[in-house]
C-alpha cells in the first residue's frame, strides 16, 4: 500500500520540551551552597601553623566566601546542566529515515528560491532542503544507498544510487533553483522506477516547501513517499501574467506599445506596490503605476509607452517594488513587438488580391518580382509574402499565401491537374483564415486540385478534391489556394475580402509574437529562424551559451531554466539575431502561503510525523548526568578513604 508521510520542516536541532531548561535554575542554589560558609565543628589543635597551607578559607564575618572552582562544584554543575538539557528533550531530525535504498527528491521549483523569514543571514528554502537532505544522508544506516534527484519542470538525476556519503552530499549541493513551475510527479515516477527492481527497504523522500503546482502527482506511487516540508509561510506579491502588443492610442491614434500585467497579492496584508516598465539595459522608466493590492486580490495593470522605430525587438522589464521574499516573480520580461503596420510583399499577385490587401489601412504593400524577393534581405522578418502563379520554397519572411501555383509539388502539397467548374462542398470553419465567412455561392471556373501530403490539411474542399490547403510548417504559417481568384466570382463576394483580412490578421499576430510565442521558463522554447540558418547559438540570462541545431526554420531550446532574456543568433545567408523573453508567471509557485499536502487516508499527519521523525538524545544526557554524579561521589569518597 502506498504511504505518503508528511514531515513538518523544523530546525536541525531542537528542544521538544524547552520547559525542561527551567531546571537550570537549580544552578543558583548549587552555587549558593558553595558560596555560603558551612557551619564547621570546632576543634582545638596544638598549632594551626601546620595547617596554614591546607586551609581553604579563613574565618570572616561575612556569611559568604569566595567561590572557588572546586572539582565537585564543576562536576555537579555539569551534571545539572546535562540533566536539564536532557529534560528539555533535545532531538535532531532525519535520523528516522533509514533504509536500504532511499531516493531523495529535492524540489527545485521557483518557490524554493523564497527566502525563509527569521533573524540572521537569509537562507532560501532550497538551503533548508539541502540541510534536510544532508541530515537524511547522515542518518542512513550503514550499507544503505541513496540516489538524489532534483525536481523542476522535469526530473533530473543528480546522483545515481551510491553508498558514498561524500558524493551524495556533493550531489545535494549541486541542486539549484530553477525559475519554473515544479512537477514532482516526474521525479517521483523516476525515483520509483529506479527503486522498483531493488530488494530490501525502499523509500522515496521528497523535500519540498509544499507549494506544489501539481500536488496530486505525489499520489499513487508504488513505493511509500515521505514528504519533508521546509520553509515557513511568507507573504508574496507576484506578476502572474504579462502580455505586450502594439496598438494605437484612443485619442491621437498614434502607435504605442500596450502592456497588460496581472499582479497578485498572495499575502495576508494589503500591499502598496509600484510597477515600473523600462527597457533592458536602460534606467529610464517608460511607464509606472502605483496601486494597492488587497490580500488574495489579482489586479490588472495596463502600461503604455510610445516606441521609436529602434525600440522594436528590444527587451522590456516589468518590475514591482518593494521587493519581497521571492524576487523571481517580482520581475517579468517582454519584447517590444513589431509595429502595427504589416509589411506585405507581393510577387505577380492578381489585382484582386492586391486590391483586397490595400483595403487594410495598416498594411504596407511591397510589390515586386519573384527574383527581387528571392534576394537575401529583401523581405522583412515577419512580413506576409504573397506569390501568385509560382511556388518558391526559400523565400524569407513570415506567413505565406501562395495563389494558383503550377502543377507539381508545392510546400507539402501536390498541385494536380486542372479541373473545370469544381463545386465547393465544404470548408474548415474552425480555421482562423476561414472565420466569419461562407463560400456558398462561390463559383470557380477552373482550378488545380490540391493533394495534401504529410502535415498539410485541406481547408476548402470541392467535389473533385481540395481547392485550398494549409501548408503551414512549425516555423511559419502558409496558405495555398489552388485557383486564380480571377477565374472565379469569389473576389466579387464579401467572403473574399474576409479571407484576405483573416490571413492578414493571422500574419499580424504571428509577426507580433516575433521569433517565438510567449515563453514560460521550464517549457521548451521554439524559435523561428530562417530556413537557411545553419548554426544557432543561444545565450541565456546567466550568460551561458548553448548550441542548438535548427531544422526546417525552427530551433527548439529544450531547457529554459530561468526567467529573463535569451539572445538567439544564427549563421547562414540570412544571419541575424533575436531577443526572446521567458517568464515564470505561475500563481502556484508564487503563492507561498501554506497549503495542505495531499496526504492519503490512514497515514500519519504532518504534526505526528514530525515527532516520529526526530531522534531524541535525552537518554544520552541522562547517562552523562549519571556518570557525572558517580564521578562526584567517587571523588568525595576517594578523599575520605585516603584520610582513613
Amino acid at each position, binding site marked *: 500500500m502506498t504511504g505518503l508521510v508528511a514531515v513538518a520542516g523544523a530546525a536541525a536541532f531542537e528542544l521538544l520540551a524547552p520547559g525542561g531548561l527551567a531546571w537550570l535554575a537549580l544552578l543558583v542554589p548549587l552555587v549558593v551552597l558553595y558560596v555560603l560558609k558551612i557551619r564547621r565543628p570546632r576543634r582545638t589543635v596544638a598549632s594551626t601553623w*601546620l595547617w596554614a597551607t*591546607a586551609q581553604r578559607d579563613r574565618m570572616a564575618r561575612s556569611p559568604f566566601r569566595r567561590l572557588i572552582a572546586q572539582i565537585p562544584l564543576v562536576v555537579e554543575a555539569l551534571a545539572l546542566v546535562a540533566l536539564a538539557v536532557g529534560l528539555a528533550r533535545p532531538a535532531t531530525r532525519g535520523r528516522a529515515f533509514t533504509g536500504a535504498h532511499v531516493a531523495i527528491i529535492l524540489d527545485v521549483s521557483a518557490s524554493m528560491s523564497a527566502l525563509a523569514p527569521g533573524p540572521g543571514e537569509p537562507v532560501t528554502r532550497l538551503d533548508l532542503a539541502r540541510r534536510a537532505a544532508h541530515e537524511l544522508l547522515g542518518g542512513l544506516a550503514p550499507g544503505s544507498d541513496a540516489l538524489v534527484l532534483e525536481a523542476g519542470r522535469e526530473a533530473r538525476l543528480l546522483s545515481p544510487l551510491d553508498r558514498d556519503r561524500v558524493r551524495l552530499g556533493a550531489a545535494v549541493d549541486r541542486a539549484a533553483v530553477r525559475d519554473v513551475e515544479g512537477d514532482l510527479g516526474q521525479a517521483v515516477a523516476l525515483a520509483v522506477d529506479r527503486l522498483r527492481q531493488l530488494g530490501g527497504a525502499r523509500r522515496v523522500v521528497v523535500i519540498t516547501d509544499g507549494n506544489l503546482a501539481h500536488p496530486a502527482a505525489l499520489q499513487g506511487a508504488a513505493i511509500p513517499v515521505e514528504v519533508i516540508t521546509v520553509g515557513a509561510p511568507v507573504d508574496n506579491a507576484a506578476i502572474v501574467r504579462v502580455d505586450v502588443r502594439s496598438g494605437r492610442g484612443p485619442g491621437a491614434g498614434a502607435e504605442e506599445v500596450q502592456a497588460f500585467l496581472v499582479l497578485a497579492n498572495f499575502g495576508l496584508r494589503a500591499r502598496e506596490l509600484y510597477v515600473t516598465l523600462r527597457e533592458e539595459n536602460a534606467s529610464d522608466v517608460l511607464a509606472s503605476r502605483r496601486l494597492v493590492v488587497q490580500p488574495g486580490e489579482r489586479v490588472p495593470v495596463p502600461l503604455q509607452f510610445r516606441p521609436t522605430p529602434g525600440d522594436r525587438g528590444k527587451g522590456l522589464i516589468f518590475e514591482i517594488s518593494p521587493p519581497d521574499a521571492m524576487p523571481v516573480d517580482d520581475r517579468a520580461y517582454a519584447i517590444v513587438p513589431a509595429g502595427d503596420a504589416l509589411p506585405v510583399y507581393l510577387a505577380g499577385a492578381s489585382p484582386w488580391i492586391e486590391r483586397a490587401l490595400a483595403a487594410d489601412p495598416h498594411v504596407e504593400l511591397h510589390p515586386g518580382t519573384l527574383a527581387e524577393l528571392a534576394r537575401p534581405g529583401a523581405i522583412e522578418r515577419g512580413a506576409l509574402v504573397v506569390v501568385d502563379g509560382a511556388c518558391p520554397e526559400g523565400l524569407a519572411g513570415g506567413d505565406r499565401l501562395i495563389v494558383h501555383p503550377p502543377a507539381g509539388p508545392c510546400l507539402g502539397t501536390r498541385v494536380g491537374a486542372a479541373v473545370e467548374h469544381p463545386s465547393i462542398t465544404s470548408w474548415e470553419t474552425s480555421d482562423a483564415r476561414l472565420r466569419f465567412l461562407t463560400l456558398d455561392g462561390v463559383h470557380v471556373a477552373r482550378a488545380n486540385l490540391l493533394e495534401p501530403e504529410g502535415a498539410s490539411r485541406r481547408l476548402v474542399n470541392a467535389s473533385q478534391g481540395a481547392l485550398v490547403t494549409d501548408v503551414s510548417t512549425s516555423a511559419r504559417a502558409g496558405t495555398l489556394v489552388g485557383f486564380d481568384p480571377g477565374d472565379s466570382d469569389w473576389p466579387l463576394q464579401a467572403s473574399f475580402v474576409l479571407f484576405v483580412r483573416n490571413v492578414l490578421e493571422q500574419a499580424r499576430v504571428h509577426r507580433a509574437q516575433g521569433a517565438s510565442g510567449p515563453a514560460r521558463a521550464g517549457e521548451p522554447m521554439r524559435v523561428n529562424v530562417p530556413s537557411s540558418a545553419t548554426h544557432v547559438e543561444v545565450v541565456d540570462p546567466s550568460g551561458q551559451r548553448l548550441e542548438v541545431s535548427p531544422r526546417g526554420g525552427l530551433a527548439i531550446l529544450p531547457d529554459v531554466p530561468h526567467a529573463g532574456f535569451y539572445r538567439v543568433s544564427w549563421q547562414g545567408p540570412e544571419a541575424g539575431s533575436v531577443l526572446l523573453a521567458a517568464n515564470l508567471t505561475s500563481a502556484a509557485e508564487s503563492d507561498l502561503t501554506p497549503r495542505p499536502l495531499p496526504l492519503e487516508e490512514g497515514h500519519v499527519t504532518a504534526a505526528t510525523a514530525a515527532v516520529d521523525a526526530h531522534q531524541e538524545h535525552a537518554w544520552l544526557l541522562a547517562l552523562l548526568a549519571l556518570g557525572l554524579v558517580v564521578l562526584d561521589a567517587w571523588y568525595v569518597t*576517594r578523599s575520605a578513604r585516603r584520610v582513613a
Partner: protein
Amino acid sequence: MPAPAASARAVDLLGPDFLRELEVLRRRLEIRARSGGGGEHRARRRGGSSEFEEHRPYAPGDDLRRIDWAAYARTGEPVLKVFRAEEDVLVRLVCDASASLGYGEPPKLAVACRLAAAVGYMTLARSERAQVFVAGVGVTREHPPVRGRAGLPALMRALGAIEAGGGTDLSRAVDTVVQKSARPGLLLAVSDFFDPGPVTAALGRAVRAGHDVVLAQVVAPDEIEPTLEGDWALEDAETGAVVEVTVDAAALAAYARRFEGLCEELRGFARRHRAAYVRVRTDEPLESAVRRLVARSVD
C-alpha cells in the same frame, strides 16, 4: 643509690623500673660540653686532676712539682706527669610549657616533663648540676641549679609544677638561657617545636656559645598522621586563631609536607652541629626515647 625522699618523687614521675634503667643509662650519657670547675666529668682539656694522662718532656717554666722524679731517676731525663682535668657539667633543661604542649592524650607536656626528669635524674645521679628553665614566650620561669642526688626533689618539684599555657617563643627562650649561662653545658630543649619563629637560629647561637644541644621533639600521634576528615574549624591552642579547613587528600598532603619540613629542619640542624635529635611520640614508651637520646641519635 638515691636518697629515699628524692627517690619517692622520682618514682612518681618515672616509675621504679625506669629508674633502674636510668641508673644504667647514666653512665653512657655523653655530654660534649663542660661548664668549668672541678667535677666528676672528664674534661677535654688537660689539667690538674687525679687521672693520669701522659708524660712529656720538661720545658722551662713548667711546674717543678709535677716532675716525675721516679722517672727522672730511671731515665735521667726530666719529664712531667700530665693529668686530665675533670670539670663540672651543668645540664640546662629547657622545657616548653606553652599551651600547645597541653595537647594530646596523654598531654605532650607530661611526656616532656618525664623526659626532662629522666635526663635530670641521670645528671644528678652523676653528681652533676641540673637546672630547669620553663619556656613560653621567652623564659617564663628559671629554677636554681641543683647538684647531686640531693637536688633531685627540687628538680622533680620544678618539673612537676609546670603547667601548659600561653604562647610560644622558643627562640627567645633559648637566647635567654644562653645569655644567662656563664659557662656552656648540655642544653636539652624539650618542645613540640610548633613555633614559626627562628628556633634553629637560636639553637645555632647556643652551639656557637659552646653548649651541647640536644633536641627532644614531643608530638602526639595524630599530629603525625591527622585523623581529621571533612570540614573543620581548627582553633590554635596558643593563639586562639581559627583556621577553616576542608580536610581532604590535598589538605592532608599539604599538612604532611609542612610537618615533615619542620622535622627535616630540626634533623638537619642536629646533623650540622653534631647535636642529638629525638622525636618522641606520646604513645611510645619513654625508655626507648631516652635510650636514643643517650645514644645521641638523630631520628
